[in-house]
């Protein structure tokens, strides 16, 4: 039986006529930093401007709860506690071709709407945007 208590708080996919409570999604933006660093400065600037416009648009329409770009992955430090002992490692938790560079926290009625919003995030054209629902949203 696939019934789970977690469902009780969730709205899927209760059609609009029951409730309209939105779900929250985190859009994680990944791109190849090396490639970004070698991009034409004007092009990079244009991309940045575009992001700003899109953020503002989302903020104004109330679907966006938070937006943040991150410093380069070269500034990352990874923390692990094993057997009560902390170890620190320079760099991200895993070496990947594309690195996490920022996120949008959005509200949407369902995955389709979340994907529509995510597809408008400018870096989606260069890197990848991973859309993850928040637990218990």
């Amino acid at each position, binding site marked *: *039986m*696939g019934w789970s208590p977690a469902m*009780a708080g969730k709205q899927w*996919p209760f059609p609009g006529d029951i409730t309209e409570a939105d*779900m929250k999604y985190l859009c994680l933006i990944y791109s190849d930093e090396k490639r970004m660093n070698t991009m034409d400065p004007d092009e990079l600037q244009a991309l940045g401007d575009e992001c700003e416009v899109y953020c503002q648009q989302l903020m104004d329409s109330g679907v966006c709860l938070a937006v943040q770009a991150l410093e380069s992955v070269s500034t990352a430090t990874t923390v692990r506690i094993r057997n009560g002992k902390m170890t620190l490692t320079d760099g991200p938790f895993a070496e990947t071709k594309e690195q996490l560079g920022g996120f949008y926290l959005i509200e949407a009625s369902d995955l389709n709407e979340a994907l529509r919003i995510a597809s408008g995030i400018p870096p989606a054209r260069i890197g990848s945007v991973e859309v993850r629902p928040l637990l218990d949203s």
Partner: protein
Amino acid sequence: MNSNDRSRRTAEVRSAVEAIYRRESRRVLATLIRLLGDFELAEEGLHDAFAAALEQWGRDGIPSNPRAWLVSAGRFKAIDNIRKRSRFQASLSELVRQLEEQAGECEQWEYDDDIADDRLRLIFTCCHPALSADARVALTLREVCGLTTEEIARAYLVKTSAMAQRIVRAKSKIRDAGIPYEVPAAQELPARLDAVLQVVYLLFNEGYSASSGASVLRRDLSAEAIRLGELLVQLLPEPEAMGLLALMLLHDSRRAARATEDGEIILLEDQDRSLWNREQIALGVELIQRSLATRQVGPYTLQAAIVAIHAEAPSAEETDWSEIVGLYDVLMRVAPSPVVELNRAVAVAMRDGPEHGLVMVDAIQQRGELADYHLLYAARADLCRRMGDVSGAVHAYRQALDRALQEPERRFLQRRLSELEG
């Protein structure tokens, strides 16, 4: 009523309920999923509703609108089921309240249009691109076609437990990621319909390319795919939905002619055309005409049009290869791919002679494309054979054999090879 009458009555009701189950259960399920918002809850409600029907219809007679009765019963059974659980879990009471409130509202599901929409919603949800391709196929077979998990597992040669896992995981993603139960909006429809058609065609090919012997179940997949195609055309008469149905019908029309009794492949040119199913061909051709009339030509319709030219040729010699090459030209513009290019090369060889086709096949090979595709080598071998280049043909047949996986195809290639070497 004596006991004989009663048992006859029970048997009558049972067979009526069974017939209604076959005809209506998928529609009732689709509507229950919308009303209840959960696949498992809806399935449970569906089974409870049919169990209740057996009992109550025996006593009170079959209602005038069995579908509406079943939807209503399924919904209340489901609410009952949640209420029982809510005794142990307070957070469920709110859900029960919402569902009851909604159930008291005007019962729109009685209109056939809504129910048709529910089936379409279900198809689009099961074929959502956010699900893996495997999951889409499995979920569609389970929820839309009503196959059991065991049947799907057998058709795909995996363990039932693994298939059950796949289906459960897909349903969880639908619920937890918030994949909606809706027909996509106009601007998203083409891309989303594409994903649906892909699932249907995958299903068809899975059944169509199945070898003989223990593959009866897999052939059923083709029949399911055609039924799904018909449903789609009926619910959403988009040109490419018609094109795909036409393509499947036209391929299927050759079913009786394409293999010997012991499962050996019979090539198109050697098939007994009197065995082709004329009814399916006529249906396919009509669908192609309807699709072409919309002036939105897509790859399924074009492929169907190519198959239709074969279907309508009185003999292999009388095939209109110029027309076929022309259609491949359009297909290359609409949906270019190396496979289309290969097929076009073969058609050119038939129109202009094997040496013209060979140049094109070699060009594909030199680009390093389709290096693992056995039909590239089989096509090359056939062209060499027709040009009298025995050693070239032998070499290419061997390359094809190294890559072919299906037993009947392997035996066919082996036969050709032996003929040349013998």
